[in-house]
């Protein structure tokens, strides 16, 4: 299968008045065609920074890509995104045409001053200026119908605040699909939604993905959602990828102590109730610098000094399951 995105050794720092935040450290992963990559991580894991850097929407300053590369379509166009000027035309072309994104808060992602229809069609008119107004309209209406919005023509002229969260999220999905991108990034799209609406949206995303032949990067802190929707999973902690692999593998056979601890600590609705095993301590402050493993302070399986002092190496097993831990060195 062809790779559509390659992120290699990506490190990003934020230079703030209070100090330097090492938001990402040596992040490595790939996205293949037509697959869903699930990214699981809590606050401070760097998952949002990662996808923002792919889309080139990080404010630089205070952010700065210190090292590494982001390659789009490495086996054909091989566009090195991190080298492109973020305000330049090439990057603008990539955004939405090739890679688009849906966000967590549908209310704040839409401008309250413009109608939903205007905003959805804007992306299309900007990228495909050759299309006539009627063409644009029909594409947008078709998309709105596809994402399950009843009476799209009426919906088009109304404003974001007139709709519920679920409807707005659908509109946002329609907006993200308008140029038929190759990668759709979903940054916690259902976290703010009720579980019954979440189920609708997840089902929608699955059907859209196969119909449009897209890859999807799905970010969440909810392991169950990630498990359900992903082909492969990336586990992030404190700016590093600590584990990755095929979804079933990572969930049924987790290798990294963080993943294991996380799985043990969440209440699962479809498994017998056991006492929850919490992860003690809390996520370190973003200003902390770790020469060794950042999970050291909370890890119950740590080996000793080596975990504190030395950065764990990446180990890749035959089935593609990778882990960054001294236990697997």
């Amino acid at each position, binding site marked *: 299968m062809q790779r559509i995105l390659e992120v290699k050794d990506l490190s990003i720092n934020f230079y703030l008045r209070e100090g330097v935040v090492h938001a990402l450290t040596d992040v490595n992963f790939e996205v293949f065609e037509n697959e869903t990559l699930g990214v699981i991580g809590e606050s401070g894991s760097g998952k949002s920074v990662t996808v923002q850097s792919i889309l080139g929407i990080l404010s630089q300053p205070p952010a700065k890509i210190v090292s590494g590369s982001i390659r789009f379509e490495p086996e054909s166009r091989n566009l090195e995104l991190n080298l492109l000027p973020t305000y330049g035309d090439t990057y603008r072309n990539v955004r939405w045409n090739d890679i688009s994104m849906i966000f967590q808060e549908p209310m704040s992602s839409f401008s309250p001053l413009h109608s939903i229809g205007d905003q959805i069609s804007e992306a299309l008119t900007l990228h495909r200026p050759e299309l006539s107004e009627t063409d644009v309209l029909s594409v947008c209406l078709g998309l709105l119908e596809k994402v399950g919005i009843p009476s799209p023509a009426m919906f088009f002229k109304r404003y974001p605040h007139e709709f519920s969260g679920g409807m707005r999220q659908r509109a946002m999905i329609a907006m993200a699909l308008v140029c038929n991108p190759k990668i759709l990034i979903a940054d916690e799209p259902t976290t703010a939604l*009720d579980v019954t609406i*979440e189920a609708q949206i997840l089902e929608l995303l699955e059907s859209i993905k196969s119909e449009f032949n897209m890859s999807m990067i799905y970010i969440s802190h909810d392991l*169950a959602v990630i*498990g359900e929707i992903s082909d492969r999973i990336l586990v992030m902690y404190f700016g590093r990828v600590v584990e990755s692999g095929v979804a079933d593998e990572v*969930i049924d056979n987790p290798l990294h102590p963080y993943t294991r601890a996380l799985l043990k600590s969440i*209440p*699962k*609705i*479809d498994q017998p109730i056991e006492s929850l095993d919490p992860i003690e301590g809390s996520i370190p402050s973003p200003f902390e610098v770790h020469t060794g493993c950042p999970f050291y302070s909370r890890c119950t399986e740590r080996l000793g000094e080596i975990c504190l002092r030395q950065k764990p190496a990446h180990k890749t097993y035959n089935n593609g399951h990778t882990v960054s831990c001294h236990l697997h060195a």
Partner: protein
Amino acid sequence: MHDEKVILQVNDLKKYFSLRTGFFSETRYIRAVDGVSFELYKGETLGIIGESGCGKSTLGRSLVNLYNITSGSVLYNDGDQKINLINANDREKKDYTKSVQIIFQDPFSSLNPRINVFETVAEPLIIHRYPKEEIEQKVSEVIAQVGLRDEHLRRYPHSFSGGQRQRIGIARSLIISPKVIICDEAVSALDVSVQAQIINLLKELQARYHYSYIFISHDMSVIRHICDRIAVMYAGRIVEFGTKEEVLNSPKHPYTEALLDAVPKISNRKSKGKRKILSGEPPDLSRERIGCNMFERCGYRIDACQATPMKLSDVGSHHLTACMRTKEIQLNGLSIEAKQP
């Protein structure tokens, strides 16, 4: 598991918010809580589950007198005192606050940033005029119970993480030794790895001090983990009520079935297609309606559902449901047996 004594009895509780849309137009009401009744037994954990807008938070806050109840009654009876919240005088209301407390959802806004931890936790005691030495001693005790240390007392909220702040909030609610504690989404705003810590803490405290909890949440997995009985709320009303095993394994209301179905299950992945996804949106709470409040979205509806007023009926061993078709339809629940911890 719990006493047979009822410590809190809620009868037909209604909380309406008035919507004034202008000087001359009619007042409309948002029926946030539209007739809720239940009993809380001493020492149990009663879960209230529902989605946004179902009225569970309004219910919780009404139970600690943060909202003035529109109608209905709330009876507190712990054997020593009996208080009816509706017609309580000021002294009774103050006594009530000593017995029924609340823990809030957002650890970042539930602590006054200008007050240090000691004063925050001590506030209930100060309000109820406890002597100074007793206050200091109790603060120290309760702070240790929630897993913090004395040196944290002089610090300010901004220097603590979300999980720690939630512990401080819990300490504040417990210091007055209440009997009933309303947990209003107490773990929803925490990181996943910290949620388990707080859930365990709440369970430990209950085991030690025999608190009765009303645990409000939208997260079915958490509710299942911590609660004994479950009330399912939809659009201001309880639509199903029963023990955890009954409600989760053999639900008797279509909404419960849809909720259970919608929850992503970590060991039953890729189960799409078999899901009964609930279509549509929650109803408008300002419209008065006869008949079932879930009518438009229900896959099992028949015309009669729209005309028959909602009523909770007992389908055996105190398992209540508001669905009038419950005997005719077959609903699916979770298929795993719930084991006691």
